[in-house]
C-alpha cells in the first residue's frame, strides 16, 4: 500500500536490569520497518532477542535507547499505550497461560470488554472473530477441554476481536503437535490474506518461515539477515554456521545446485522442487 510503514523500530537497544550488577543487553541497535499487509517471520535461537524485539511492538517493553513508532504513536508515551495495544495484538507461546475465562466466548470477549465497547458490539466482534478462526461451533465450550491447537485459535480470536492492525505471534506454535501447528498456520494465512491483518511471527520452525513475505534472522540481539524467504534461505552455508535449520526442499535444491550449477539453489516448497525436476524431463524406470 502507498501509505507509510505501520510500525517503525528505530535504532533500538534494550537492556534487562540496567544499572544492576549484571545488566543484559538483549537488543543492539535494531532497525525494523513493518508495512501494512506484511507477513514477517523472525527466526533465531533462544536468547537472540526475538521475543524482546516483538514485545517492543505493543509497548510491553520500552526501548532503553532508540524509538518505536506504531501508527505514528511513540510507544514511550503513556497516553498512547492502550491505543497501541489495541492496534498490535499479541498471541503467546503457552495456550494455557493466556486464556482468562473458562468459556470460549467469554474469553474472546475479554479484550473488547476491556475497551469498554457497547455489549452488542462486543457480541458482534466475538462472533466474527470466532468465525474467522473457525471456532464458532465451539463458542460455549469450556476452554480447558479444547486441544492445544484449538486453544491457540481461541487466543488468536481473543486478539482479533480487538480489531488490531497487526497480530504478533510469539512462538505460538512451539507447544503444538503437527496437526495443531497446521491449524494455527492456516488461520494466520487466512488472517493475512483475507482479512488484511499484518502478521509478525516468531518461530523455530523453518517450514513456517516460508509462509511469510519477509524473513528476519536474529543473532545476539542483532538482525543479521533480512529479505524474502528465498533470499534468506539461499544462504544455506551461513544459516548452517549459525546452527539454524533450512527447510528440507531448500536444502535439497541447494545440494543439487552444488552438483549441477544449473539447478536453482533456492527452491522453498515441495511443489517448487517437484515442478523444477519435472520441467527438466528425464526419469528412471
Amino acid at each position, binding site marked *: 500500500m502507498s501509505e507509510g510503514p505501520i510500525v517503525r523500530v528505530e535504532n533500538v537497544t534494550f537492556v534487562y536490569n540496567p544499572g544492576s550488577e549484571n545488566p543484559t543487553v538483549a537488543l543492539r541497535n535494531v532497525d525494523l520497518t513493518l508495512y501494512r499487509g506484511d507477513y514477517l517471520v523472525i527466526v533465531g535461537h*533462544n536468547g537472540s532477542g526475538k521475543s524482546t524485539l516483538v514485545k517492543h511492538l505493543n509497548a510491553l517493553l520500552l526501548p532503553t535507547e532508540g524509538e518505536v513508532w506504531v501508527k505514528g504513536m511513540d510507544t514511550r508515551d503513556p497516553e498512547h499505550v492502550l491505543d497501541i495495544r489495541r492496534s498490535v495484538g499479541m498471541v503467546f507461546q503457552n495456550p494455557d497461560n493466556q486464556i482468562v475465562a473458562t468459556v470460549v466466548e467469554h474469553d474472546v470477549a475479554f479484550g473488547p470488554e476491556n475497551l469498554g465497547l457497547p455489549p452488542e458490539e462486543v457480541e458482534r466482534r466475538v462472533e466474527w472473530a470466532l468465525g474467522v478462526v473457525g471456532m464458532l461451533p465451539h463458542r460455549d465450550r469450556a476452554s480447558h477441554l479444547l486441544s492445544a491447537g484449538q486453544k491457540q485459535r481461541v487466543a488468536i480470536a481473543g486478539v482479533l476481536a480487538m480489531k488490531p492492525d497487526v497480530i504478533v505471534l510469539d512462538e505460538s506454535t512451539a507447544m503444538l503437535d503437527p*496437526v495443531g501447528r497446521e491449524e494455527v498456520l492456516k488461520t494466520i494465512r487466512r488472517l493475512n490474506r483475507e482479512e488484511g491483518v499484518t502478521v509478525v511471527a516468531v518461530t523455530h520452525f523453518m517450514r513456517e518461515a516460508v509462509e511469510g513475505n519477509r524473513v528476519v534472522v536474529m543473532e545476539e540481539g542483532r538482525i543479521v539477515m533480512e529479505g524474502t524467504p528465498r533470499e534468506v534461505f539461499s544462504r544455506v552455508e551461513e544459516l548452517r554456521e549459525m*546452527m539454524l535449520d533450512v527447510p*528440507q526442499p531448500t536444502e*535439497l535444491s541447494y545440494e543439487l545446485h552444488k552438483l549441477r550449477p544449473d539447478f536453482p539453489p533456492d527452491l522453498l516448497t*515441495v511443489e517448487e522442487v*517437484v515442478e523444477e525436476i519435472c520441467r*527438466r524431463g528425464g*526419469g528412471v524406470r
Partner: protein
Amino acid sequence: MDAGRPIIQVNDLHHRYLRGTPLEVVALKGVTMEIYEGEMVGIIGRSGAGKSTLVQHFNGLIRPRERGKVIVDGEDLADPDIDIRALRQKVGLVFQYPEQQLFERFVGDDIAFGPLKMGLPMEEVRERVREAMEMVGLDFGRFKDRYTFTLSGGEMRRAAIAGVLALRPKILILDESTSGVDPRSRKDLLGRIDALHRERGLTVIFVSSSMEDVAELVDRVYVIDDGRTVMSGTTREVFSRPEELIRYGLGVPQVTEIVHELARRGKIPFTTVVNVQEGKEVVWKILNSSAT
C-alpha cells in the same frame, strides 16, 4: 534391529484414567509392541494419542490394572510385589520439558538427587554425576557449581536429562524431550542421544511427533493413535504409507514427500527416502537420465 532379546513386551494394553467416575477417560485401548535390547525405537502419534500413558507404564508410574500385560526385563508389571524403585532406576524416563523438574540451587546437586536417593556412597555419587554431565555435554568442573536457574534453556534441558542418566538406566525413554528448545539445542540433543545408543548400547525409546527427528534417529517405529497401535515397521516402511500417517494426524518429512510426488508423476518407481541425502541421490539419477 534384531539386536537382542525383547526387553519390553506390551500385549493388548488398556488403561482408563479416573476409572469408575463420571470423568473417566479411556487412554489406551489395545497397545501391543515389543522392544528389543539395545535398539532405538520410535513411538509416534498426535497429542492425546496415548503415548505418554503408554511409556509411563514402562517404569511403573502407571500399573496395568485392566486388560493387557506389560513385561519389562522379565518382570510382569501387574505383579504388586516387584521392586518398583529398582525398576525406575533400570528404566530412565525423561518427561517433556524436563527442566521444569529442576529444584536444587546448584546443578551438580540436582543431578545427584537420584544417586543420593539410591543411598550410594559420596564418591560413587560424584562419579555418576560427572559421568552423566559428560554424556549430555556439560563440563563437570565448569557446571557442577553453577546456579541451576542461571543456565540457558538448552543447558537446563541437558542438566535435567543428566539427572536421569545418573541412575545409569538400561533403557532410556524420552517423552517428547527434544521439543520446545531452539534448533541448536535440538540438534545437539539428538546427536547425544544417538551417541548414547551407539556407544553405550542403551536401549532408547524416542517418543515424538516430529517426523524429521524420528527419521534422523530411529530405525523402527510404532504409530499410536486413539490408544491403539495402528502401524509398525522400519521407519522407511512406515514412511512409505503417507496417506495412513496423515489420517493419524502425522505426515512425512518434506523430502520424503518430494520423492513420493515424483513417483506419482511417473518419474521414478515408487520409493521412500528418509533424509535429504537419500533424496538427493534419487533426484540426481533423474537429472542425469535427462542429460543423456
